[in-house]
């Protein structure tokens, strides 16, 4: 909710500053007294967690860049040197690597929260589209970062993923090859490729940070959605962001950091692939190229489609379809809690995404391939068929009269 400013400069210095650059006024209005629905649950704490993780990745990333060497001869050794020689290098490297996993974990929870509670529906479409854009940028950034280690998985992941673009040769002969050689800076993945991936891995997080500012801005115009999906009607429906939600978000962040800490200190390699501790060898492909866990569902979609170009379209479409969700969902009710038919399809979709993740980690043969295809079909059917149709035929349950009523019962005003 774009609310009128309540900032009252109390000292002479504040008045002097406010009439020149009203930064304290903006902080006061947007992050202190900002009216926030009183019924937010813990799924609403992941935005704060994500901001924190972005900061963790940027800070650990900059310090790692002070010791990393982006050449095929130096890359793998410099990472080992960071692990062994650089003061606290092992901690910083693992924090950055495990941090990427935690970042995606939080991003996926955040995205599903939006899907469950209809946070993409009017008037929050631009907020949602910026979020999907951030997700795409995160995927590109994480992919480039993984390549920098220059282990076997790094090298072959770059080879396989950049080769996806060669499928464009099917449309216009030569276009795909030209594009891939432009990305590589040569006729194969090599020194030029690694060098530019380093430059872009450094650049992208700052683009993400820029889009995050727009994302928060786009949130603060309509204000937060809430678990009922009912709009804020009176000031009684809200509480000021600070201290109520700063403390709650802070508490959730501490819980999240405990999980981060357990993985970081006791199982730093649990989520990674052991083959990336083998130095890149352009003459030998590991028997199974398996991407990082957070890419597995999309990888399963790629391999489920037997055609090279269509597989690539499926892979990109898996994320691209999210851009259109505000217009694919035809229901006027925001929250899945009040949608008796849709909720079954929704939870089946959640199971489908987890199943695709598992299938992406297995060899694409026999039953794995069959279920991969079934899962891919449901993934797209959910967005393109179920969302528009169920929204039209479903009779929603009765919504509470207000956010306050949903918390304190129907008698309250």
């Amino acid at each position, binding site marked *: 909710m774009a609310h009128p400013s309540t900032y009252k400069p109390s000292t002479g210095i504040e008045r002097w500053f406010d009439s020149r650059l009203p930064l304290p006024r903006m902080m006061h209005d947007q992050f202190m007294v900002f009216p926030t629905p009183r019924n937010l649950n813990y799924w609403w704490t992941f935005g704060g967690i994500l901001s924190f993780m972005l900061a963790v990745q940027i800070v650990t990333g900059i310090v790692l860049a002070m010791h990393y060497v982006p050449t095929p001869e130096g890359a793998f050794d410099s990472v080992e040197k960071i692990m062994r020689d650089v003061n606290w290098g092992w901690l910083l490297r693992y924090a950055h690597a495990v941090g990427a996993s935690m970042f995606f974990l939080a991003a996926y929870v955040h995205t599903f929260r939006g899907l469950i509670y209809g946070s993409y529906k009017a008037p929050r479409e631009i907020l949602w589209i910026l979020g999907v854009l951030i997700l795409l940028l995160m995927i590109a950034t994480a992919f480039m970062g993984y390549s920098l280690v220059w282990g076997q998985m790094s090298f072959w992941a770059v*080879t396989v993923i950049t*080769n996806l673009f060669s499928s464009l040769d099917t449309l216009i002969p030569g276009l795909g090859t030209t594009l891939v050689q432009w990305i590589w800076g040569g006729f194969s*993945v090599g020194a030029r490729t690694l060098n*530019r991936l380093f430059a872009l891995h450094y650049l992208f997080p700052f683009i993400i940070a820029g889009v995050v500012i727009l994302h928060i801005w786009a949130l603060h115009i309509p204000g937060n959605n809430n678990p009922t999906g009912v709009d804020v009607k009176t000031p009684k429906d809200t509480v000021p962001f600070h201290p109520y939600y700063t403390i709650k978000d802070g508490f959730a962040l501490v819980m999240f950091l405990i999980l981060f800490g357990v993985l970081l200190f006791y199982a730093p390699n649990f989520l990674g692939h052991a083959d990336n501790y083998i130095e890149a060898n352009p003459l030998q*492909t590991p028997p199974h190229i398996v991407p990082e866990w957070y890419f597995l569902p999309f990888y399963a979609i790629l*391999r489920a489609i*037997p055609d090279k170009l269509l597989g690539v379209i499926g892979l990109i479409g898996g994320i691209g379809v999210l851009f259109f969700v505000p217009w694919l969902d035809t229901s006027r009710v925001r929250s899945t809690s009040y949608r008796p038919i849709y909720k079954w399809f929704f939870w089946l979709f959640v199971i489908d995404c987890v199943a695709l993740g598992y299938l992406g980690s297995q060899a694409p043969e026999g039953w794995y391939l069959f279920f991969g295809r079934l899962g891919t079909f449901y993934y797209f059917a959910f967005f393109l068929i179920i969302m528009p149709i169920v929204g039209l035929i479903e009779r929603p349950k009765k919504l509470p009269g207000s956010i306050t009523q949903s918390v304190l019962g129907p008698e309250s005003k």
Partner: protein
Amino acid sequence: MANPDTSTDPSLLKDDDASRRDVILIGAGGFAAIGGAAMLWPLLDQMNPDASTLSLASTDVDLAPIEEGQAITVMWRGKPIFIRHRTAKEVEEATGVKVDDLIDPLARNANLPDDAPATDDNRAAPEREPWLVMIGICTHLGCIPQGQAPGQYKGDYGGWFCPCHGSQYDTAGRVRVGPAPQNMYIPPYTFTSDTKITIG
């Protein structure tokens, strides 16, 4: 009405005045766009293969030490080149296949026209059937197929097997089981003597 306000009433503008201003406006915008594009192109083109990469054009290989049934891998432009000295049985198997039975009916041979059919003759070295020289990269997503080293699984067609997604190639390097869409590519090469080739 000595000085009519032309900014609020367009009908008072003389036609030639309007068109002259439009030319200046469109011209200025057009030149700005051309200048921007001319600046954008170097920023994009710097990523294309540079002079030192392009200079790695050719590689010479001595075939004399390769016994029948052996295969070696050499590097050319950062890509592995498979060179196999095929046995008579392997050549016979490859020759016996009808082009109609293949997934990809084209030879994919840089030394022949683009539409040459994928017969064994068009895949092997000219006049030297036992020799097969090709880029050892699976045409699916770029993995290196197995089958060069002795003891490696060569797939059901006795050629190469890609471990990434299970594509299989026959003894002429033609794809027989997908998902790879094309036969492995033959690089440009020539025999400079009976036992030497130049790739590239």
